């Protein structure tokens, strides 16, 4: 079965034997985008979080057939090295990762949160950022999320001033 969708702004078509193959494995093994991680395989830890049409999705539990015609964003498409996304910049500034394995999932979940709640409170963060980090980087992540919100707001202000 051929599945077509857009990944990080590029149209992609992949052939899959099983339409219920988790999107995660198509992203990692077929499209070779290794930033999205496999953690638990039960939609519990959030390491595999990516965006489908702007919504955070646990890709280990998302059949690829549901992605047909949709826009997928992975950590590789969030920003670039020269122009990082506010979430990526905040993560760098706050030196959030320890081992780093779970961080792409947290960053994608945070990007989704800021799209919905541009200036999240601690309660908003507690409710929406529920991934699991075995290194316990939660405190630094919280700081980074608040910083990302600030960077994002500044970035939007700069854009509107230029326009």
């Amino acid at each position, binding site marked *: 079965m051929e599945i077509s969708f857009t990944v990080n702004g590029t149209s992609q078509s992949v052939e899959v034997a099983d339409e219920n193959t988790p999107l995660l494995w198509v992203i990692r093994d077929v499209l070779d985008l290794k930033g999205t991680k496999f953690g638990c395989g039960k939609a519990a830890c959030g390491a595999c979080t990516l965006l489908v049409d702007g919504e955070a999705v646990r890709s280990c539990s998302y059949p690829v057939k549901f992605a047909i015609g949709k826009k997928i964003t992975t950590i590789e498409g969030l920003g670039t090295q020269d122009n990082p996304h506010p979430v990526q910049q905040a993560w760098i500034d706050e030196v959030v990762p320890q081992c780093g394995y779970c961080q792409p999932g947290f960053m994608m979940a945070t990007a989704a949160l800021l799209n919905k709640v541009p200036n999240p409170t601690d309660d908003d963060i507690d409710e929406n950022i*529920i991934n699991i980090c075995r290194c316990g980087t939660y405190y630094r992540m919280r700081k980074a999320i608040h910083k990302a919100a600030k960077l994002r707001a500044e970035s939007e202000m700069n854009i509107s001033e230029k326009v």
Partner: protein
Amino acid sequence: MKLKTIYTLLAISTVGLMLALGKSPNVSSYVVLNMPESKMIESEEAYGQMMDVLTHQRCMNCHPNDNIPKQGDDRHAHYFGLARGKDDTGFEATNCTTCHQSENNDYSGVPGAPHWSLAPASMGWEGLTRTEIAERLLDKSTNGNRSHEELVEHMTEDELVLWAWTPGVDANGEPRELPPVSKDKFKKAVKSWFENGAVVPTK
């Protein structure tokens, strides 16, 4: 002459009153005339079957009274602090569809069905008696302003309701427990109970 007439009428009234009192019906002798006994038994059986399903964890887990969805056959609180949110589907960026899709996922064991969500808070059943559940079910102020016909349709045709009989496997690959009444029997019971007036037996 006048006095004699009055005495006579008084005497007749007294005798009549005494006769009436002697044959006065008591509460236990009342008979419900608008529902034959066979129909009443049928209605009570249907009610029992319907309630066996509504109080089963496949239904009850998404009808909480504390805004926290429940999971599993042991009805534990949903992991990761998930809760009702503003529209019964969780929070802004992390909600039901972050993990639950429109069908079960046998690879991950995550259940799914169309419009996966909690029942509205007004339809919280957790911890209620069967009678209290029936009252919430029938009360338009708590049931989403549904008529009896609309309730029958919702309970016998809604894909999320009927998911209870195709709940898939859990994270360990074990099949989830089914409600104690088959889907066909449940549908018949719901229709029968409403056709017989949706009488709550204990009332």
